């Protein structure tokens, strides 16, 4: 019984380390969100850190329009990064979980 417990604890520790390594790795994954007309683009890491915003000169004349573009594109970029982040971390966490009935649904 204690053997099982120790094994499980070891596996959990291993999973924690894998999750930490994955989080670190996701810092290097770059995603982009580009407005439909290509006038504004945002680069974001899979850990949701915004790294670059490119704005076409034509957007600089209309402050309100630029604000709308930024809100739309930034939100989409954050959503995309969140999806990648959650999917990758869930995959690593799932690998390290003991086989408990019903546990699968937590990661779906």
């Amino acid at each position, binding site marked *: 019984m204690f053997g099982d417990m120790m094994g499980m604890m070891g596996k959990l520790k291993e999973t924690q380390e894998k999750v930490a390594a*994955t989080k670190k*790795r996701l810092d*290097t*994954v*770059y*995603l*982009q*969100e*580009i407005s439909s007309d*290509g006038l504004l*683009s945002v*680069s974001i890491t*899979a850990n949701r850190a915004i790294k670059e915003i490119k704005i076409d000169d034509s957007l600089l004349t209309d402050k309100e329009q630029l604000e709308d573009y930024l809100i739309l594109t930034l939100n989409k970029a954050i959503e*995309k990064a969140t999806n*990648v982040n959650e*999917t*990758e971390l869930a995959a690593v966490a799932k690998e390290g979980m003991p086989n408990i009935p019903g546990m699968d649904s937590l990661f779906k």
Partner: protein
Amino acid sequence: MKKAFVIFLLPFLLNAQADFNVIDESKWLTDFENAIKEAKKEDKNVLVYFTGSDWCPPCKMLKTDLFDSVEFKTLSKDYVLLYVDMPRNKDLLSPEQMAHNKQVMGIYNKKGLFPLLKIVNAKGNALDEYSGYSMNGKIQYHLELLNKYR
């Protein structure tokens, strides 16, 4: 027992190989020195592609969306292609290839970004780069970069 184990592993090994073959078919080299030699010989620039083939989601999608596209097949003829993979599973590469890739990373991808396309001339000087991918099929910026240095 050993035979049974190998048979059990065979589909996984073949799958890993098949995954690499998609890249291989487009004439991707895996050795930097060879790529530079080829670039000098053919008077072309080198397109270096940095990827995490088994862990980086945008890299995986870029392979399908960009490298399998008709546009890329045309543009890539004007480049020497170099594939630099940094997989999580260390068994996917030989220790020598991994060491080589780390060395290339240290020179041309110091920030360690994935995916990254880097244009290098035949003298080994970096000309330009484009990092990241939108994961929604928009490859115009990647193509613009390739068009600019062909």
